[in-house]
């Protein structure tokens, strides 16, 4: 069987499955990024708050989830989540082992990790807002919510785009580790295809190329977003 046939879209080809895997990887990373955005915003707020306990908790979260291997966190969420689910099931009278669906476990685990990174991104972006603007908004009597909507959120988002781009790339690559839970993402599909055809080199190269396409395309997208978001900013620092 030729390479074209093996990687193609025909009956015996793996092309379609690989593309489905790539789609799964994208879905997983997107879900994780959104989850991480919510978590990151909350943790960033905690780290910036006046409350000492909140600051400590925020620092603890970012230290743990940025310092412990991603694989270990995936194990924690997958196995821990499954045994928690089994316990809850047992409480409601469901017998036997209940597994956490691997998509949910993976999205949760990668989301927890990228939330820790996003928290740092948002914190840095908030600190980049000129103090005078916040004071001015307060001085003309804007409420907290209005201040957040009009002054803080637009600028934090703008300053955070390069950082979010980095986190996205990181999460895209971390999502490959979710394959250990059996989720049919790009990594897992390449592995299965490689194993069943015994063409390890070919399929890992093909999978790697698809990952490269995903990362380079999203790189371009974030560059575009950055240019668009900063179109009202004076050109200068940081722009080459």
């Amino acid at each position: 069987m030729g390479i074209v046939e093996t990687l193609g879209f025909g009956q015996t080809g793996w092309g379609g499955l690989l593309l489905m895997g790539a789609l799964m990887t994208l879905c997983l990373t997107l879900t994780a990024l959104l989850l991480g955005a919510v978590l990151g915003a909350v943790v960033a707020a905690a780290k910036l708050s006046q409350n000492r306990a909140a600051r400590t908790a925020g620092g603890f979260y970012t230290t743990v989830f940025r310092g412990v291997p991603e694989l270990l966190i995936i194990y924690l969420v997958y196995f821990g989540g499954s045994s928690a689910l089994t316990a809850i099931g047992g409480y409601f009278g469901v017998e036997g082992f209940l597994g956490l669906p691997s998509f949910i476990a993976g999205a949760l685990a990668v989301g927890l990790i990228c939330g820790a990174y996003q928290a740092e991104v948002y914190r840095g972006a908030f600190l980049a807002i000129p103090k005078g603007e916040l004071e001015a908004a307060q001085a003309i009597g804007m409420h907290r919510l209005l201040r957040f909507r009009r002054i803080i959120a637009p600028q934090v988002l703008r300053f955070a785009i390069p950082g979010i781009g980095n986190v996205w790339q990181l999460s895209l690559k971390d999502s490959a580790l979710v394959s250990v839970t059996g989720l049919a993402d790009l990594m897992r599909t390449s592995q299965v295809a490689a194993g069943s055809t015994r063409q390890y080199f070919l399929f890992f190269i093909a999978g790697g190329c698809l990952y490269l396409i995903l990362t380079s395309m999203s790189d371009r997208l974030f560059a575009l977003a950055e240019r668009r978001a900063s179109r009202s900013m004076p050109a200068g620092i940081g722009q080459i």
Partner: protein
Amino acid sequence: MDIPFLFQTMKTLLAAVPMTLALFSLSVLFGGLLALLVVWMRVGGNPVLSRFARGYIFVFRGSPLLIQMFLVFYGLGQFGFIRHSFVWPALREPFVCAVLSLALCTAGYTAEIFRFGLRAVPPREIEAARAIGMSGFLLVRRIIAPIAFRHALPAYSTEIVMMVKSTALASLVTVWEVTGVAQRLISQTYRTMEVFLCAAIIYLVLNFLILQAMALLEHRLSPHRRAAAPLVPGSLPVSR
């Protein structure tokens, strides 16, 4: 809390720490050397080498480490000329494959970090060194390397912490380091939380020690910044 179980788990996991450290130190060493080569090709002025280095950095930074590791571990053995060559006895070992792929991957990231460090070397210092007759290796050793390394150090310490976390992937090619042993313990005992706690503490302590060592190195390498501190009584010079 089951203290004897935690104690026993900690003991089992600590026995795997030398393996994690071996993976880490060998891959950082070889990855660093390879990064020097790549960055030399990237900025050396030869367009062919520069393009190759660019491609190298793109490929190894853009695809997940896991797929690279599987490519080395499963993919290379597929070829007869590799199986019959003198490198096969080494490449057959999972440990060698893990170190090889970790080093190849970190070289891509580290090369970019070193390149940004090189950018920070003021051209006038190079000019001055040339003016007094320094050239070639002496110029690199006395002027360029110290300045570039000092500027690259903060980003490099982040990369090194990433490397500690990346060693966890070696467990997926059957090298029994801390995460692999933790996974085995989890699936034997179903006590995810306790095992995770122990493993997380090990990694956090490792990262903390490494970051402290890097901070110490940074402190040692930048005496010029401390010397400028004002000698006002009662004001301590602030490092960092």
